[in-house]
C-alpha cells in the first residue's frame, strides 16, 4: 500500500495539480482548500498548528535560557561552597529593601503580563493595551531601581576585580577573615547584569507587542505572540526570584 502511495508521489500526481501555479503566485500555490488566513504562515496548515509550534519553540528557547544562566549559577554554587565567608560577609553590602521592592515590582509585572495574555485571547483590545503599558512601566521601574543600586555600589567602590575598593567595612560580621570579596561582586554584577539585559530585551519585545496591539492585530484566533512573550517575561521574573534570596538574603 505504501509503495503505491509513493509511486503517485514519485511522478507528481497529474490529476492533483489542476490550478496553474507558476512560482510567481506562491502563496496561492498550496494554500490548501479554501481558507488560509493571512496571519497563518504559508507552511502551516492551520492556526492551531502554528500556535502549538510557536509554543513548543518558545518553551525550548526558555530551556536554553535556563542553561545560559546555569553557568553563572554553577559559578555561584562553587564559590559559595568553597568560600562561604565571602558571601556571608559581602551580602551585607547589598540593599535588601531595594531588592525586595524590585521583587514586588517584577511579581506585579508578571500579573499584568498574564492578564495581557488573557485579554489578547479574549480579544479585549483596550485591556490588552493597558496591561502591556503597565508591564512596561514595571520593567522600567525595575531598571530604575537597579540603576540606583548600581550607582551606590560603584560610588562606594563595591565592584568586581582589582577595582574593588570598599569605602567602608561591614560592621556586624563575626566570622573568618574574608579574602577576595571582589569575587562576590563579580558574581553579583554578572548575574544581575545578565538579568538586566534580559529585562531590556523584554522591554523591546513588549514594546513590539504594544505596537501590534494598538493596530488591533491580536484576537482570539491570533494571540500567539502575546502568549510567547508572556512566557519569556515570566522566566525573567522567575530568575530574579532566585537571584534575590541567593544574593541578598544570605545567612
Amino acid at each position, binding site marked *: 500500500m*505504501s509503495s503505491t502511495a*509513493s509511486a*503517485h508521489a514519485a511522478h507528481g500526481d497529474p490529476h492533483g495539480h489542476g490550478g496553474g501555479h*507558476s512560482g510567481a503566485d*506562491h502563496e496561492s500555490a498550496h494554500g490548501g482548500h479554501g481558507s488560509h488566513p493571512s496571519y497563518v504562515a504559508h507552511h502551516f496548515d492551520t492556526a492551531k498548528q502554528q500556535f502549538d509550534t510557536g509554543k513548543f519553540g518558545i518553551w525550548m528557547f526558555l530551556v536554553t535560557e535556563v542553561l545560559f544562566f546555569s*553557568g*553563572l549559577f554553577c559559578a555561584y554554587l562553587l564559590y559559595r561552597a568553597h568560600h562561604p565567608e565571602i558571601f556571608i560577609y559581602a551580602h551585607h553590602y547589598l540593599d535588601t529593601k531595594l531588592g525586595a521592592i524590585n521583587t514586588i515590582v517584577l511579581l506585579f509585572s508578571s500579573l499584568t503580563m498574564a492578564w495581557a495574555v488573557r485579554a489578547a485571547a479574549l480579544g479585549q483590545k483596550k485591556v490588552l493595551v493597558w496591561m502591556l503599558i503597565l508591564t512596561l512601566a514595571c520593567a522600567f521601574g525595575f531598571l530604575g531601581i537597579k540603576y540606583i543600586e548600581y550607582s551606590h555600589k560603584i560610588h562606594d567602590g563595591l565592584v568586581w*576585580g*582589582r577595582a574593588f575598593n570598599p569605602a567602608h567595612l561591614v560592621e556586624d560580621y563575626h566570622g573568618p577573615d574574608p579574602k577576595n570579596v571582589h569575587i562576590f561582586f563579580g558574581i553579583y554584577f554578572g548575574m544581575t547584569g545578565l538579568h538586566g539585559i534580559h529585562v531590556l530585551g523584554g522591554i523591546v519585545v513588549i514594546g513590539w507587542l504594544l505596537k501590534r496591539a494598538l493596530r488591533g492585530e491580536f484576537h482570539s484566533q491570533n494571540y500567539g505572540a502575546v502568549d510567547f512573550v508572556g512566557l519569556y517575561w515570566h522566566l525573567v521574573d522567575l530568575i530574579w526570584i532566585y537571584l534575590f534570596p541567593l544574593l541578598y538574603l544570605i545567612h
Partner: protein
Amino acid sequence: MSDSQLATTSAPRVHAAEPEQNYLNCSRGFWSWALTLDHKRIGVMYLAGVTFAFFLGGVFALAVRTELIAPGYTIMDADTYNQMFTLHGAVMVFLFLIPSIPASFGNFVLPVMLGAKDVAFPKLNLMSFYLWVTGAIFFVAVLFTSGLDTGWTFYTPYSTTTGTSVVFATMGAFILGFSSIFTGLNFIATIHMMRPPGMGWFRMPLFLWGLYATSLIQVLATPVLGITLLLLIVERLAGVGIFDPAMGGDPVLFQHFFWFYSHPAVYIMILPAMGVMSELFATFSRKHVFGYRFIAMSSVAIALLGFLVWGHHMFVSGQSRLIGMVFSAITFSIAIPSAIKVFNWLATMYKGVIWLTTPMWYALSFLFLFGIGGLTGLFLGTMSTDIHLHDTYFVVAHFHYVMVGGTLIAFLGAMHYWWPKMFGKMYNEKLGAIGAWGVFLGFNLTFFPQFVLGTRGMPRRYYNYEEWEGFESLHFWSTMGSYLLGASLMLILVYLIQSLVKGKQAPVNPWGAASLEFTTSSPPPHFNFDVTPTVGEPYDFDDLVFDAKTGGYVRQEARNS
C-alpha cells in the same frame, strides 16, 4: 496511470529541455537569495559558507603541515605557527564542523524528507544563517588584527593574558553558538510539529533521527558555551577574576565549563554524519536498513550520554581519581551505541546488492576511518594510558580520524548523494571515485603516522622537534599525505563546479533511494512538492527499478500500470 499520461502531464517536469520552475529559478536577483525564507536556499547558502570556511581552515592546516615537514624553521616562526594551528582548529570546529552537515544538508533535506513545506520557523532559520555570517566576520577580523594563539580551546589563564585578539574570536564563537542553537531549536520544532499524517516517529528516515539527536545537544549544551565565553570576555575586558588564580578565581572551572559544551559538541559533529551513513548504506546496498530502531535510539543515547563524559578531557587537570574513574566508565559506555550503529551498517550491507557509486565509496571510507577513530578513543578513555598519550600526536590523530574520517567524509558523501537533488545536475562519476580514493589515501597517509608519532612521544602543538628524536620521516610522510588530501579536495571542488555548467540533467531518483526527497523533481519546486506526498516506508527498495528513459529509478507498479 499510463505511460501516455505520464508523457503528457508530469514527464515534462522530469526531462524537458525548457527550464522548469524550481526553487533555484523561481525568483532572481541578489535580494531574492539574501532575504529568502526558503530552507533550500538557506541550505545552499550555508553550503557555500561552510565550504569556504573549510577551504580557509584547510589552508591553515597545510601551512602547519608544511612547517613541520622538517626540523627547525621551514616557512614561519614559532609565533606565526601558534596562530596557524589555533586558527586551523577554531575555524574548522566553529565555522565548519559544527554547522557543516546539519546547517547545509540538514536545512535542505529535513523538511523535504519529512514531507513538510518548510522548517517550523523560517525567519529564525535565516537569522541563524546571518548569525553564522557575523561569527565568520569576527573570525576574519581576528586574522586582520593581532591573530589568535590560544589553541581553539581558549584555556585560561593564558587566554586572559595573551596579547592576541581573544575577544574577537570568543565573540565570534559566542555568536556562532546562537546560530547553532537556533538551527537546533528549529529542527526539533519541525520534527515534532510539522510531520504530515502517516509520518510516525519510526517512519522517519534515520538521517532525521541523527539531526534530531544533534539538535538536542545544540539546544542543551551550546548555551553553556555561550555563558562561558561571555565570562571569558568579561574577564578579559573588565578583569572580573573568576578564572584568575591570582585573584582567587579558578582556571579549572573554565575547563569544566568549556568541555561541558565541547564534548557534546563532538557529537554535534558526528551524529549527523552517522545519520548520513544510515541513508547511504541502505540506499547503496539496496536493502532495508538493519536494526532501524536500534540505530535511531542509539543516536539519542549518544546524545544523552555525551553530556556525562566531559571530564575525560581533564584526566591530568588534577581532578580526583574517583571522578576520573566515573568519567572513564561513562566514556566506555558510549562505545556501545556507537558500535551498535557500525554493526547495523555492516549487517545492512550483508547480502545486499552493493552499488559502488561515489557516495558509497565515502560510506565505506567512513566505516573504516570511524572504526579506527573510535577504537583509538578507548586508549584515551583509559586513565592509565591517557596519562602517557595526553597532549601527544596520538590525540591529534585520534580526533582527526573521527572529525575528518567521520564528519568530513560524511559531509562529502552527503554532498555527492544530494548534489543531483540540490542542483539538478549529475557530476562525473569516474572523477568522483578518484576523488574519494584520493581523500581516503591522503587522509590515512597524513594521520596514520601521527599515531606512531604520538606513541613515540611527539607532543601536540609543538613548533619544533630535533633531528635526533627520530620524528622526521613520520612528519615528512604526514605532510605529503596532507598535500595529497588537499589536491584531492581541489579535484572534487573542480568537478562539482564543472557539473553545474556541463553536468547531465539529474533524474528524480538517480540512486533508487526510497525517502521522500527522491520523489520530487531535481531540483525541487519552491514549495518542495507539487502535491503533498503520501508517506511511505523510507527503506523499501523492493520495487524500485531503473527507467532508461529518465536515467533514474521509478516504482515498478507505476511503470507497469
